[in-house]
């Protein structure tokens, strides 16, 4: 009984601890840190506001220096090569990344990340690399989308194959608004998934039913065997 009591206490302790964080903490399949949503989905749990970024790029010998702009939470990173900006009349380039306060829902696209506004006080003249991190709570994005205005139109920039888990990479030729997502007219990419999503309550319900249905006969058989053994011992 003492062992059962310890187990029951551990179940309660675990339930409270697991309830206090977003689901998906088991073996590191999730991103290295929870995604900071502008509009968190219900399953996100406690949410922190996404952060902004500011970068001053030096101009060396008439060429803008190589540098990277990234938000403190690492949810968006832009890598600029040397000479990425037109520096005519400039002594430095100022780059700002700001998460949009709203969550646009353009027709035909389902965004799975925040929308970020990326601005600079000089035009981009060389292709730059953009990396967007996404959450494991939502489907994988098929592409990074870009617009010059949050109301659209949004253009797909695609995504490169090589990226760290839960990030998408692409190349950009101009600044503006960026978000990762997938066409909502088609199923979410990588749609073949195991577990998660809306199937989780069903999985848990099936497990409980199996435990109850198989557990009762097993318990009865064990009890009968126990009493039979006790009777045999008495006869002896």
């Amino acid at each position: 009984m003492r062992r059962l009591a310890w187990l029951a206490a551990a179940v309660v302790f675990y339930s409270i601890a697991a309830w206090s964080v977003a689901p998906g903490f088991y073996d590191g399949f999730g991103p290295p840190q929870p995604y900071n949503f502008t509009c968190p989905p219900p399953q996100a749990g406690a949410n922190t506001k996404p952060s902004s970024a500011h970068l001053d790029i030096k101009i060396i010998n008439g060429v803008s220096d190589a540098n990277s702009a990234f938000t403190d939470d690492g949810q968006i990173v832009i890598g600029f090569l040397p000479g990425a900006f037109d520096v005519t009349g400039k002594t430095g380039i100022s780059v700002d990344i700001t998460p949009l306060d709203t969550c646009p829902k353009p027709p035909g696209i389902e965004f799975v990340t925040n929308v970020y506004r990326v601005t600079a006080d000089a035009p981009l003249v060389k292709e730059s690399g953009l990396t967007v991190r996404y959450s494991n709570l939502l489907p994988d994005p098929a592409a990074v989308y870009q617009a010059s205005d949050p109301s659209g139109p949004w253009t797909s920039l695609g995504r490169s194959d090589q990226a760290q888990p839960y990030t998408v990479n692409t190349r950009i030729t101009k600044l503006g608004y960026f978000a990762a997502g997938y066409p909502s007219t088609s199923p979410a990419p990588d749609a073949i998934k195991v577990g998660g999503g809306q199937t989780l309550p069903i999985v848990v319900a099936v497990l409980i039913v199996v435990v109850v249905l198989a557990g009762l006969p097993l318990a009865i058989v064990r009890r009968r065997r126990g009493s039979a053994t006790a009777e045999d011992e008495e006869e002896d």
Partner: protein
Amino acid sequence: MVLSVVSKRPLARGLALGGYVLAVEWARAVVMRAPGTLFPALILGGAALVIAAWGWSPERLGLGRKRLALRVLGGFALGAVLLLPAAVRSGAAPLLPAGLALAAVAISIGEEVAFRGALYAALDDAGGAPLAIGGTTVLWTLAHALSHPPEFLGAVFAAGLLLALWRWACQDLVGPIIGHVIADLAL
């Protein structure tokens, strides 16, 4: 010489096993950060963890065949307990890409065999059940420190404690393996 000391002294054996398991888990977490390494890191990490059980009999690891049906059922119950908070929360949870299912199974089995199997047995020899339960839970939490955000470590600790208490209360590793596999596949 070192091997001789480690094999004869239970505490030294427990510490050596703990160090090995931590090294494997941390190496896996670091390697997984590089692009394209998630699947091989999980498979190889799981295999490297299973090696920790080398030299232990199945009974000492909690893998005997006695009451197998009950223990399998216990694994389903553990799986339900591990998933319940996420299921109740909103009915939605993270999605595990199908390609990672095999990797999830491999790492779940590897972790259970290493932590609640070999490490538990070694620490049990060294200091009894309290050291085995406490030691495996602390090392399990430390092992996940590099792969999980700090705010998740409380839940990781609680899951480790639950699985270790099961191992102690039921003298069983089959349940934790099944529960862990189900939880990793479903989340």
